[in-house]
């Protein structure tokens, strides 16, 4: 479980996160939604420590994360997998070497065990046989899956995904969504996904937090979201013409 309490963050005097408190449950796909520039990515990066929050608390189970120094954070970070918006695969390494990288660094496994683990992770994301390919040879969806394979290589307790669907076609996007949900349930991971994709919200949104202009405006699940009386949320959810028409006709 991850608990965020009263987080504030500003850049050059501009408040980007304004008193956000939220709890992310294990074994559940937790979504942070909001329009572009609402503060989703800053919130996610503040939770994992890539940005330092100005004030507030971030708890991983019973550990207050944001007061730890770099070396103390390492122990928690080894339990975190992260999927970045642009996949962030290492360009100079093959798919196999990318997935093996965290194992080389921290696992203590021997070469055969590492190879087996890499193959297992690649098979889990349906990328078996792509071991020797380089990131530049992969499609957008394959890059995301390779990045997921790398993120789960060390059996993380926490998985963070920053806009996992950006730049993908709707079918591939749903595949990635389902993969994240399956992995979350399979390994009882606390998963936090940043998205503004409404398909993702309806497919995998077990717990949803809506933020707008750095403030938490609404919290609920994918069933409750359609009947919310939060105007900002309704404007976001029913932004396109079809959704508006369906809502107005009561479908």
């Amino acid at each position, binding site marked *: 479980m991850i608990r965020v309490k009263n987080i504030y963050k500003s850049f050059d005097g501009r408040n980007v996160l304004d008193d956000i408190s939220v709890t992310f449950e294990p074994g559940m796909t937790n979504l942070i939604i909001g329009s572009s520039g609402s503060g989703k990515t800053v919130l996610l990066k503040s939770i994992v420590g890539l940005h330092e929050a100005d004030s507030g608390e971030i708890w991983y189970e019973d550990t207050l994360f944001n007061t730890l120094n*770099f070396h103390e954070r390492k122990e928690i970070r080894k339990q*975190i997998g992260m999927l970045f918006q642009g996949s962030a695969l290492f360009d100079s390494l093959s798919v196999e070497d990318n997935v093996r990288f*965290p194992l080389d*660094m*921290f696992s203590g496994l021997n070469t055969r065990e590492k190879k087996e683990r890499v193959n297992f992770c690649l098979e889990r994301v349906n990328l078996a046989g792509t071991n020797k390919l380089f990131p530049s040879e992969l499609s957008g969806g394959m890059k995301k899956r390779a990045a997921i394979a790398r993120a789960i290589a060390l059996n993380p307790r926490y998985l963070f995904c920053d806009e996992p669907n950006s730049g993908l076609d709707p079918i591939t996007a749903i595949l990635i969504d389902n993969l994240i949900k399956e992995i979350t349930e399979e390994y009882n991971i606390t998963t936090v996904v940043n998205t503004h994709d409404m398909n993702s919200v309806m497919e995998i949104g077990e717990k949803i937090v809506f933020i707008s202009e750095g403030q938490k405006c609404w919290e609920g699940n994918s069933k409750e979201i359609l009947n919310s009386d939060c105007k900002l949320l309704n404007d976001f959810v029913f932004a396109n013409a079809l959704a508006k028409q369906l809502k107005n006709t009561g479908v």
Partner: protein
Amino acid sequence: MLKFLHEFGNYWILMGKVFSKPENYSVYYRQTLREFISLGLYSIGIVVIISVFMGAVITLQTAYNTDNPIYPSYLIGLGCRDSIILEFSSTVIALILAGKVGSNITSEIGTMRVTEQIDALEMMGVNSASFLILPKITATLLFNPFLTLISIVVGIAGGWIAGVGAGVVTSSDFIYGIQYAFIPYYILYSMIKTVFFAFIITTVAAYHGYFVEGGSLEVGRASTKAVVYSSILILLTNVILTQLMLS
């Protein structure tokens, strides 16, 4: 001035992170071997080409400017040798490597920064500064003196080929000249300068890449800045070291 102090402080904070205990020695070792190839071995070609031509030009220039019966012709070999050992193979090659290796380092690390690859390393619990920069520093500090030695040998050979080929000096006079009044300390002086220059090239370029913000345009600008700053620092360090070591 404030900006300069800010950058200067950031540079040394980064160096503090770079020279911290590696997470996994075998991974760092493999990374260092990769850097030996990409920063060292792949630079031999350009060093050889430039050294041959510079050696040739130095010889021809010396010959045409000392074309007088009172100067013995072996001075052409001596002039070529000392110019190459004292300045060309350390300083000029360092300036060229600041362009080739420095821009390579800045663009590589800068691209990793803007594509969140550095964030990915940090998220895994890896000290990204140390992992990315320390192997490059190790590789250049150990390999660049070797490049300087190659440059000295090839540069003098280029001078011999040009001098003898153009008929401005006989082979025996040139060879006598390069042996005449040889001071082995000059080689040490050249090597020490090379080590300092290698540190400047690598760390200044890495610093500019590591802290780049924005996109590909900013990476390009950072590469240019890295080359300019490291070239100025090389020239400044050259003056200081020359005064300290040869005075």
